[in-house]
């Protein structure tokens, strides 16, 4: 017979809520990149505004974790799940922040010439994928998936360099595009940071499985 049913339900609920928080940030990143590529100011503004929801998730999950800590005094796997969730929400909240920052950039961007940038779209796709898989690896307890996320970050760094080179070239060709190029450079940096936060999440997943926190 299983005991401590309510407690186990609370732990499962914690994972569900983390997954929901993560899905929200995924959508935000997708929309932010779409807004960026299509110069859609309205969409950018919408993304920036939804950051508030992410913050609400963070506060709520944090409260639940802290309450479980004093109420259940968890040990072993329970302790690892709760402490991981508590650390992880900081990184997930950063996913939202970075997406909102990109949204802000688009929303306040002065009108200018469009620049076609395949690499930045690829960064966006990769960021969404890393975010999804990092949190999914925790929810499913899948260490292999966490390892994959950690490895994928190298690809993200390569894309960032590629975007930088694209933009330098763009400025060389057309000096007038400088403003927009710098804005895109900032957006690329935000996406690259999202990759780093996804790596943090994957590291915490590994801690949750093994009890050892290793920095990659």
């Amino acid at each position, binding site marked *: *017979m*299983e*005991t*401590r049913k309510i*407690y186990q339900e609370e732990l499962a609920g914690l994972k569900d809520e983390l997954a929901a928080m993560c899905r929200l940030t995924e959508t935000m990143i997708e929309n932010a990149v779409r807004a960026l590529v299509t110069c859609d100011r309205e969409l950018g503004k919408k993304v920036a505004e939804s950051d508030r929801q992410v913050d609400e998730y963070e506060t709520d999950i944090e409260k639940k974790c802290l309450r479980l800590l004093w109420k259940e*005094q*968890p*040990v*072993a*796997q*329970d*302790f*690892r799940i709760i402490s991981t969730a508590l650390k992880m929400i900081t990184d997930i909240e950063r996913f939202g922040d970075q997406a909102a920052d990109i949204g802000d950039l688009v929303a306040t961007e002065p009108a200018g010439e469009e620049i076609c940038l395949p690499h930045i779209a690829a960064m966006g796709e990769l960021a969404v994928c890393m975010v999804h898989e990092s949190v999914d690896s925790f929810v499913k307890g899948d260490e292999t998936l966490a390892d994959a996320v950690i490895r994928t970050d190298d690809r993200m760094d390569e894309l960032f360099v590629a975007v930088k080179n694209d933009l330098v070239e763009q400025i060389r060709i057309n000096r007038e595009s400088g403003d927009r190029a710098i804005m895109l450079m900032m957006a690329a940096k935000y996406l690259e940071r999202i990759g780093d936060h996804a790596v943090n999440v994957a590291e915490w997943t590994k801690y949750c499985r*093994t*009890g*050892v926190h290793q920095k990659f």
Partner: protein
Amino acid sequence: MNRSEKIMQKNPEQSAAGGFRRKDVRKIKKAAAEEKAAPAALDREQDKDFFGQTLSAKEVNLWYSSFQALKNISMEVPEKKITALIGPSGCGKSTFLKCFNRMNDLVPGCRVEGSFFIGKTDIYGRTDVNLLRKNVGMVFQKPNPFPMSVYDNIAYGPRTFGIRRRAELDRIVEDSLQKAAMWEELKDRLDRPALGLSGGQQQRLCIARALAVAPGVLLMDEPTSALDPISTGKIEELCCELAKSTTIVIVTHNMQQAARISDKTGFFLLGELVEFGNTDDIFTAPRDERTERYITGRFG
């Protein structure tokens, strides 16, 4: 075994309950008065050479008649550390604890196989059980002070080992109460009956009594389970302080207590030692699924 020991241990449960009959008290006092032992027997350094402070059990099996209570247990207990034994009731942890000062010798039908060493001494070999129990003190779940004054409780052991000089006994009593962090509260009440103290004070007095013969090892069988959180806290602090010079093995049902004070933790289940390791590891990432289920309260 000397006479007072025999009388005291004829019925450990009775003494644990503090329920001495008057006849027994007379016997205990008389036996103590008659004990003659070498005055040097309290020399801690000398005993340490003999017993050491590490405990080692190898391939231990123990039966109570036909019931096997311990199954092939091996454990190395490090010196001057706190080792906690946890597990559900009836898992064998107290039985195992008591083997280290041969308290199970007195249980009818009890048979022990395997070896127990304290330092380099095989304690089930040709060992003087008195000397063993002097070196390996024991504190029980229920405080069991003798129905005597505070002073006499603590002086009991030293007297048994032949110390008669009042000044020497005074020094030991003060020293033991200091170590048990209760000298200040009891120094003006040394002649009061120990049974008049509160439960928590009685238990610390029992620890002080055990310390009076300078044991290198202290066994504690759920020493705080009958105490309130404040007394529990005092005893836990005391354990940590004593562990600087004494090896402590503690049986506890309080998992947080094991996590708080112990360096090593052993998890027993149905007579088996399922897992033994650093407390940090056991409580954050236990290796065995059964340990995980027990410490997280999943056993139904």
